[in-house]
């Protein structure tokens, strides 16, 4: 009498040894560099090679690095305003495409998705040329001097928001809106009381996405930033270029953490809204 056997069906690919090895090696490959970066941010050694002991002094130094903090403040401000406008424009775009038929709709849709497709460097240099050419003022006080960067960020963020919100709208039953109108609501009221609440999870996910995109952006910001309007990634870039110190590790770890928290929240929200 044969005992109970493991069930290895012919389609149980994830149980095959070579598949598992590749999986774990890939994860190691993907995460090891980041893990090492984070670990070494706590390393009490300037040269960053041998582990000498746990310390938070590089975090302290990063915190005391005025230009770094200023860059961080800039990034947050830009991300905030960029998100605000991106969500607004993204929402308008999504509703527009979902609800209306109009001439030249296809080209319009194509244009809206261009910022997503275009190589970042092309958009970066285009923005730089644009602002220079139109003579955008370069000596505005803070936070107005972040205007150019913010505009650039909005341009490439709102199509992403539109995409996210549109996915959410695709599942909306129009009869809710029609019922509201039938009961006497005006266009605006139906929009405010029926459509907007429904879109909310999509809007929040889109906002988190826009925030992350703005916070993380390097290439486009690199071209639109000036000496006085450095953002966090751009600052980190110049620090990396200059030398590899644990301070950079500390700064990077902080940015990593923020992005991680935001992204996970966005994903969780997306999953939850997908279940409605």
């Amino acid at each position, binding site marked *: 009498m044969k005992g109970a056997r493991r069930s290895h069906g012919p389609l149980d690919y*994830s149980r095959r040894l070579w598949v598992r090895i590749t999986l774990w090696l890939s994860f190691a490959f993907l995460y090891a560099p*980041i893990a090492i970066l984070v670990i070494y941010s706590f390393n009490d050694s300037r040269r960053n090679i041998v582990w000498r002991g746990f310390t938070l002094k590089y975090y302290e130094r990063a915190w005391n690095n005025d230009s770094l903090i200023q860059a961080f403040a800039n990034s947050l401000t830009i991300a905030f305003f960029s998100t605000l406008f991106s969500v607004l424009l993204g929402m308008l775009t999504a509703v527009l495409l979902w609800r209306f038929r109009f001439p030249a709709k296809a080209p319009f849709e194509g244009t809206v998705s261009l910022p997503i497709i275009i190589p970042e460097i*092309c958009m970066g240099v285009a923005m730089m*040329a644009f602002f220079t050419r139109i003579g955008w003022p370069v000596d505005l006080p803070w936070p107005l001097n972040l205007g150019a960067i913010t505009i650039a960020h909005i341009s490439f963020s709102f199509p992403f928001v539109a995409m996210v919100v549109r996915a959410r709208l695709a599942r909306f039953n129009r009869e809710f809106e029609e019922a509201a109108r039938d009961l006497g609501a005006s266009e605006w009221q139906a929009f405010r009381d029926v459509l907007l609440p429904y879109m909310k999870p999509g809007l929040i996910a889109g906002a988190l996405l826009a925030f992350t995109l703005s916070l993380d952006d390097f290439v486009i910001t690199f071209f639109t930033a000036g000496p006085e309007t450095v953002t966090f990634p751009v600052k980190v870039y110049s620090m990396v270029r200059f030398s590899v110190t644990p301070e950079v590790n500390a700064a990077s770890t902080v940015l*990593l953490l923020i992005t991680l928290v935001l992204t996970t929240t966005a994903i969780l929200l997306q999953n939850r809204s997908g279940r409605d």
Partner: protein
Amino acid sequence: MDSWRKNPLVFWVFAVPPAVWLLLFFLTPLALIWVFSFGEKSGLIDVHITWTADNYMRALDPLYLQIFLKSFWFAGITTAICLVVGFVLAIAITFAPGRHRPILLLLVMLPFWTNLLIRTYALIAILRTKGSVNAALEQFWGWGNGLLALLGVEHLQLLGDRFEPLHLLYNNFAVVAGLVYVHLPFMVLPLYAALDRMDRSYIEASLDLGASQLRTFRSVVIPLAAPGIVSGVIITFVPALGSFLTPDLLGGTDSQMIANVIERQFKSANDWPFGAALSFVLMYITFFAIALRSVWSARRDAREALA
């Protein structure tokens, strides 16, 4: 879906802001660059539009052509590696037990969401002469020598008289490694989507009819997953082609890619027209790749519906 005429006011409320923004802060800059690409530089940042094709011709110079080719080469190898590894990962995730799948997907996609700069920088620490990889290899070298000593042959110095670190940074290898590192998650998602959507009965039917696993993979899985493969290839190849940070931070002097050349034109060489022309060449290549893919999928749909 309503016609816009049904409620013009509402329509305009929704249409005007995005349209105006796109026009002003997206299309205009692009148009500007496009016009610049036909100009000549006059002065530090001024451009004189002479409607010349010189800049584009210069792009065909052997010097720059070589860089284009190298960029294609890098992007190509990266895409190939990502395709092979990505496919295995996608298979592992698709056929994992249902409860493991979201976690595995998250684990693969999470690096994608972290900052590109940080990820690239992290690689530097790993690949340096005194970085983690070489440190580990040095350890192995030490153990190897220890073993040889045990066998009594250490005087032969079979592993060399001292450890020679591998030069893994500031060269082509580093650039490709970096590109794969950054773009691997991009490839997995469309492959996973395609595999997940596929009816498993097809695989079972193929096996049932006598085909081996390999043959099933070749004759059934790949053709049925083809749209996903094409998507994955495009969203890996195109961004890799236009990569700036990775070759900038990880590459050596001869590992330049197109984006690096463009950056130089705008930041140090101050040859904006030429930079503009290069930008547009890159954009045309991007559009071409996407158009190719649309044509391919349209043909495929037509073929499957006709005799």
